[in-house]
């Protein structure tokens, strides 16, 4: 009688194959993502300037970073941008989703129209809006030509208001995406619950406020997570729309990191700003992903 623990060759190979197949991707991600993160974290503690250098300086870069006015502006701009961008996109998205969910005849066409900006590059969006918002040639100019000569809309040239133009263009690009998330959430709600609530005498307004919107919690959460992730990463749009200006009025951490690392040759400080960005995103994403993974099991 053969040894019961013996496993034939094919089975043994089959046991190894899956791991072998997964290995290249896993190795690449380990190196290119986690290895690189480790390297950048390390650099943020060194005196690297134009090139990586390995002189350990402890927390000096972080201390410098948080003393820099430039960085403070970038962080406070991000706060304003993120709050408005997430808030307005969610609000518009939710409203459009609720409206579209009322058996609208041309729903398919409208959905396509609301969503198409998502397919565009931020550079294209920036190019279009930069010109629309240009007072000399865009919206303001048009209003003047139409006879409304007192109309003034020069936010993009005004350092107090320029950040709001970034919000406007970003909302234009991604509120349709928020709409799609909320619409999917609305379609997932059990219709019988709605019928029951109507039998209980709830008006449409009460129905939404008390029954439907509370059930959209997962959609709100996903929208928040994805939009905040996009906000923190925002780079292209600012470059194309305002180039960070006027002055530093629309500088964000992402543009700060790039300019300090590659044009100002302050790699140590650039790296430390990237680490701060990573920590911020991780603080939002990790709990969310953890909860999602747990739920799926």
């Amino acid at each position, binding site marked *: 009688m053969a040894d019961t623990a013996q496993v034939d060759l094919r089975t043994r190979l089959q046991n190894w194959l899956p791991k072998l197949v997964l290995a290249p*991707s896993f190795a690449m991600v380990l190196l290119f993502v986690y290895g690189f993160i480790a390297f950048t974290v390390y650099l943020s503690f060194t005196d690297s300037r134009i090139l990586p250098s390995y002189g350990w300086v402890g927390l000096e870069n972080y201390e410098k970073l948080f003393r820099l006015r430039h960085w403070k502006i970038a962080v406070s701009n991000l706060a304003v941008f993120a709050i408005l961008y997430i808030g307005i996109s969610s609000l*518009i998205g939710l409203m459009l989703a609720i409206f579209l969910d009322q058996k609208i005849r041309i729903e398919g066409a409208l959905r396509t129209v609301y969503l198409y900006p998502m397919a565009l590059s931020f*550079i294209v969006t920036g190019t279009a809006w*930069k010109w*629309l918002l240009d007072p000399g040639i865009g919206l303001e100019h048009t209003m003047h030509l139409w006879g409304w000569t007192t109309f003034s809309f020069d936010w993009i040239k005004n350092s107090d208001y320029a950040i709001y133009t970034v919000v406007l263009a970003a909302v234009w690009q991604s509120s349709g995406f928020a709409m799609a998330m909320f619409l999917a959430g609305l379609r997932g709600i059990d219709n019988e619950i709605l019928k029951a609530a109507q039998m209980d005498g709830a008006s449409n307004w009460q129905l939404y406020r008390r029954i439907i919107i509370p059930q959209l919690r997962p959609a709100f959460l996903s929208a928040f997570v994805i939009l905040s992730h996009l906000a923190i990463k925002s780079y*292209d749009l600012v470059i194309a729309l305002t180039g960070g200006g006027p002055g530093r009025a629309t500088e964000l951490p992402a543009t700060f990191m790039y300019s300090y690392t590659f044009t100002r040759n302050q790699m140590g400080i650039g790296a430390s700003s*990237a680490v701060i960005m990573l920590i911020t995103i991780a603080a939002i994403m990790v709990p969310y992903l953890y909860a999602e993974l747990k739920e799926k099991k």
Partner: protein
Amino acid sequence: MMAIASTDTAIRSGRVTRTFLYLVLLLFALFYLLPFAIMVMNSMKPLDEITGGNMMAFPTDWTLEPWRKAWSEAQVGVDATGLRPYFYNSLIMAIPAVMLSTFFGALNGYVLTKWQFRGHNIVFGLLLFSCFIPFQIVLIPMARMLGIFGLAGSTGGLILVHFVYGIGFTTLYFRNYYAAFPTELIRAAQIDGAGFFRIFWRILLPSSGPIIAVSFIWQFTNIWNDFLFGASFADFSSQPMTVALNNLVQSSTGVKEYNVHFAGAIYAAIPTLLVYIVAGRYFVRGLMAGSVKG
């Protein structure tokens, strides 16, 4: 772009409310359409009609000259090559990167759902988190790495970058899709004598059309529209379309040829818009197929 199936709603509303609904919805449609539409319109005007005229007016003198110029003549960087070479750069970069990341994503999803091993969730968690890192955190080491391997400033380097940072998302899509794929089918095939790869080719892949479409659309849109990696790692000869467009638009020398800029922006937008319009519903359908059963 997610599960959007038409179902009966229990909600009823009056005529006045409905008129209001349609009004708001159409106004927003206008808000989303206008910027792009005006851009298209103005790309067909001679320059003096833009600088001197009303952007909302139709062209009095229709012309495709800006389109021709943007494509083959405009000054991008140092040379007056137009955007054409950069358009091709983007294609040569995007297509292999999309295919590679989709292929590996499919295999990973297959392993992570149907051949689970101890620790598979940790592997997936690490892959998943990699989708959401701010890419600024890898810019410096990646630049070094590409330099060391002689890939700096090359399309090959960009393909590698997009492939690596796309794997997380493609794995996520395929994993969720395959999770809904009945495991009994895999077991039946095992009893029938099919091995790891045979099951993948003969059983799973033929049923993966929708999710392959999702992965293609997602990856293509992201890679085509990428600016950060292109701006960081490409040189003049390998610049993708987005970077070239930005150079064209931001160039401070000479007269600002808005109409040429618009035509250029539209060239940059056409591939992803086409993908979205032609295949957008497969995207929605594919995501639904993955989520409905899951």
